[in-house]
C-alpha cells in the first residue's frame, strides 16, 4: 500500500462543508493507495461541475476538460497509452446530461477505464437545477412546478448498453465505497460506479438520511452475472430500497485494447519510433 499522503495537493478545496464529495475523494485516494497506483501512472479525467473538480484535489495526472466531455479525452488518453490508469470523475449532469452520448458510446468501446459518477441527483455547481437523475415531481431552483422528465436510470442504461461492471455505492458507506472503487479500478474493461452523494446545498430531498434510510447492500446471495436479473435489480430505486454493491458484472468480454490491432500488438503509439522517411512506402503506391 502506498502512502495516502502521496495524493494530497495543496489546492484549496472549494466544496461546501459537509458535501458528500469529500468522502468520495477520501475513498478514491484510499483505493489508489491500496492498489498502489502511483500518481504518475494515474490520470484523473473530468468535465465541469463540483465532482469534476476532483483532479485538483488529488495529486495525479489530471485532465479537467469541458462540461460533459470527460469520457472522450479519457478514451483518447487510454488509446495512446494503455499503461496509464484512467479514472473519470464526473457528476450526474456531466455524465448523463451534457455527456449522455459519450456515456453510451464509451460503454460500446469497453476500454479499461473507470467511470465514477458523483450522483447527487442535482446540478450542484450551477446551483440546484434538476439533473437527469432528479426524481419526478421534485421542485428545484429551475423546476418550480416539479420535474416532469422521468429520471434516467444510469445502471439500467449501462447494463442495456453492454457495460461489464455496473455498481452503485453511497458516500455514507466508507468501507463499501473503497471496496467497490477498488473492484471497479481492477475490473478489466469499462466500469461504472454511480455514487449516491448528498448535496447539502441544493438537494433537500435526497439527503444523507434519505439515502441512509433506503440503501441496502447486496449480499452473497445476489448473483451479479445474470444480466436480466441485474437489469431488474437496477430498476430498484426508491422508497422500497436502493441496492448498493456490484449490480452487474461480466467477465472476459474482450476489451477495446485487446481488439484493436494496433493497440493490441504494439507498444503504445506515443512510444512509436517514426521518421518521415517511414512514410516512403505509402507514397510509393501513388507512383
Amino acid at each position: 500500500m502506498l502512502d495516502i499522503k502521496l495524493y494530497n495537493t495543496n489546492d484549496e478545496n472549494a466544496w461546501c462543508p459537509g458535501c458528500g464529495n469529500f468522502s468520495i475523494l477520501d475513498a478514491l485516494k484510499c483505493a489508489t493507495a491500496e492498489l498502489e497506483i502511483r500518481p504518475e501512472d494515474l490520470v484523473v479525467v473530468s468535465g465541469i461541475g463540483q465532482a469534476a473538480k476532483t483532479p485538483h484535489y488529488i495529486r495525479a495526472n489530471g485532465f479537467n476538460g469541458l462540461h460533459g466531455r470527460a469520457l472522450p479525452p479519457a478514451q483518447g488518453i487510454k488509446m495512446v497509452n494503455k499503461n496509464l490508469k484512467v479514472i473519470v470523475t464526473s457528476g450526474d449532469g456531466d455524465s448523463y446530461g451534457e455527456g449522455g452520448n459519450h456515456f453510451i458510446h464509451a460503454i460500446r468501446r469497453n476500454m479499461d477505464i473507470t467511470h465514477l459518477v458523483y450522483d447527487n441527483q442535482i446540478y450542484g455547481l450551477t446551483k440546484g437545477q434538476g439533473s437527469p437523475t432528479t426524481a419526478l415531481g421534485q421542485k428545484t431552483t429551475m423546476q418550480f412546478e416539479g420535474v416532469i422528465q422521468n429520471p434516467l436510470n444510469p445502471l439500467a442504461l449501462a447494463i442495456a448498453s453492454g457495460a461489464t461492471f455496473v455498481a452503485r455505492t453511497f458516500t455514507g458507506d466508507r468501507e463499501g465505497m473503497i471496496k467497490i472503487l477498488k473492484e471497479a479500478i481492477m475490473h478489466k474493461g469499462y466500469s461504472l460506479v454511480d455514487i449516491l452523494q448528498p448535496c447539502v446545498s441544493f438537494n433537500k430531498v435526497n439527503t444523507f438520511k434519505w439515502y441512509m434510510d433506503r440503501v441496502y447492500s447486496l449480499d452473497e446471495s445476489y448473483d451479479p452475472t445474470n444480466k436480466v436479473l441485474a437489469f431488474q435489480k437496477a430498476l430498484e430505486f426508491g422508497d422500497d430500497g436502493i441496492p448498493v454493491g456490484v449490480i452487474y458484472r461480466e467477465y472476459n468480454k474482450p476489451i477495446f485494447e485487446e481488439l484493436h490491432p494496433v493497440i493490441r500488438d504494439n507498444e503504445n503509439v506515443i512510444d512509436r519510433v517514426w521518421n518521415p522517411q517511414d512514410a516512403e512506402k505509402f507514397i510509393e503506391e501513388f507512383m
Partner: protein
Amino acid sequence: MKYNILIGGQAGQGMDTISDVLEKHLKSRGLFVFSNKDYMSRVRGGHNFIQIRFGDEPVYSHYPELDLIIALDKNTIEFHRDRLKASGSIIADELIAYQNERVISLPITKATKEIGFYKAFGMVAAGAALKYFNISLEGVEKVLPKKFSDEIKTKNLDAIKKGYELLESRLSLSEGCTSNNILINGNTAIALGALAGGLSFYSAYPMTPATSIMTYLSKKQVEAGIVVEQVEDEISAINMAIGASYAGARAMTGSSGGGFSLMVEALGLAGITETPLVVVNSQRPGPATGLPTRTEQSDLSFMLTASHGEFPRMVIALRNPEDAFYQTFRALNLADKYQTVVMILTDQYLADYRMTIPKFKLDGLKIERYISGEEVLEEGEEYRRYKLTGNGISPRLIPGKVEGQIVLVDSDEHTEYSHITESAEVRNAMMEKRMKKLELMKEDIIEPEYFGVEKPEVVLIGWGSTYGPLKEAVEMLNNEGYRVGALSFGDIYPLPQKLLRKYAEEAKVLVNVEQNYTGQLAKLIMQETGIKMDKSILKYDGRQIDPKEIYNRVISEVL
C-alpha cells in the same frame, strides 16, 4: 498541348473505374494529369461526371472546354455537349442512339457481349478514348485496379483493346517524359503528410468531403502503427484527440463545416490547456447541410474566431495536393511548437481532385515535438504545466513519463500549477502568456505565392484551392498581354502582409477571387491592413471556378 475529357453518367455506373484507369495510364505514358469529380449527394442515379485534363505540360486546374465526352447516358450528352470545342467529339454506345453530328456512336454494349462480361462497358469506352487521342496501350495492364482478379483483369484488358479498335485517332499528343510524378488528391495528400509527420492518433466522424482522410488513415493504421478511431460525434472526435495529444500522441481530427461547427467549444479547450492539435476543415457549401458534395470557401471568417474567448491559433489554407502534404506535415510541427490549435482549411474541390505532382520529398523533413523531460526541472522542483516563461511557451511533459511528476491541465483559468484561480493578476499573466504566441507565430508565417508579370496593374488575390485556376487564368491573361498577377495565400492567420503591401502599392487594381458570397479573405485583409479590394470575383454556386471563368470575369468586370 492539353486535352480535356468528360465522363458522365449516373451514380453507380462505374465512372470512377474508367477514370482511374485512364488517369493512371495517361500518367504512366509520361503525361500530366488533372481530374475532378462533380457528384450529387446520392448513391445511385442522378447525374455525375468526371473531367480529366492531361497534356505534355503541367495542368493545374479543370477547364470548361472539352475535347471528348464519354457519355454513359443520354443526359451526359444533353448537359455537356455545349462545352465541346469545335474539334470535339462524343463517344457513346450505339444503343443511346443520340442524333448529333458530334457523336461517335460505338458498339460498346455489343463489344461487352462478345467478351461475355457486361461490366466491361467502361473499359471498352476507356480503350476507345485512348485511341481517340492516339495514346499507346503499352503498359495499360498495370493500371487496372489491383482488387481485380486475374480473370477479370484479362477481360478488362480485352475490353480496352476492343475499344481501341472501334475508331480512328482524331487527335494526337507527343507522349511525355515526366517520371517521378505521383497521382494524388488533396485529402490523400493530407493523410500522407500527417503520416509522414508522425501522426499517431486520428479521431473523426464521417462527413463528406473530409471522410476520405480518415478512410485512408484507417486503411493504413495497422501498417503505420497508429490509432484511427471513428467516434460517435464530432464533439467526441475533437475532445478525444485533445486527450490523446495531452497524453503525448500527435493528434489530429477533421470534418467538414457542420462537424467543425460542433468542434468549436473544444478549440478553446486546446487553446487554454495549451494542447497541440491539428484540425482539418474540408469545406462544402453551407449553411447547415447546404450542398454536401460540392465545394465552397465559406468557412474562413468563421474559423478565424471560432470558439468563445480568445486564444492563439494558426489558420493554413491548402492550395493543391503538394501543399496539402507539406503543410499538414508543417502544421503538426507548429501545433507542437506553439502548443495550440493549428487549423487546416481545404475544400471539396481540392479534397477530391487528383493531379500529377512531383513525388513528395521526405529528406528535408523533420519531426519536431518540443516535448521535454526531467531535464527542465531543478532538483526537487515540482512540474508546472503553465510555467510563465519569456515567450509564453511552457516546457511540456508527458504524463507518466517523468518519475514522480504529474501533468495537470485545466479548462478553467489556472495558475502555473494548473489549479483553478480567480486572481486578476494570474488571469492577466496567463492571457498574455497565451496570446504572446500569436506574435511568435508571425516568424513562422509563409508569404503568399505570387505569379504573373513583374509589375502588375491588376493583382488577383485568392487563397486555398483557387490556386490552380488562378495560375492558369493569369497565364492566359499574361499571354494576351494583360498586366495581371495573382497572390495566392496559403498561410492565412496570422496574416502574412509583406507581399500584400508590396503589391497593394504597386498595382492599380486589387481583386479578391473567392468561392464565397461575402469575400472573406478581403474582409480579413481589410481588418488587418486596411487594404481594400477594388473589385471582387465571387462564386458560391458550389462549383469550382475555372481559369476560363476567371479570365472572362477579369476581362469583363475588371479590365
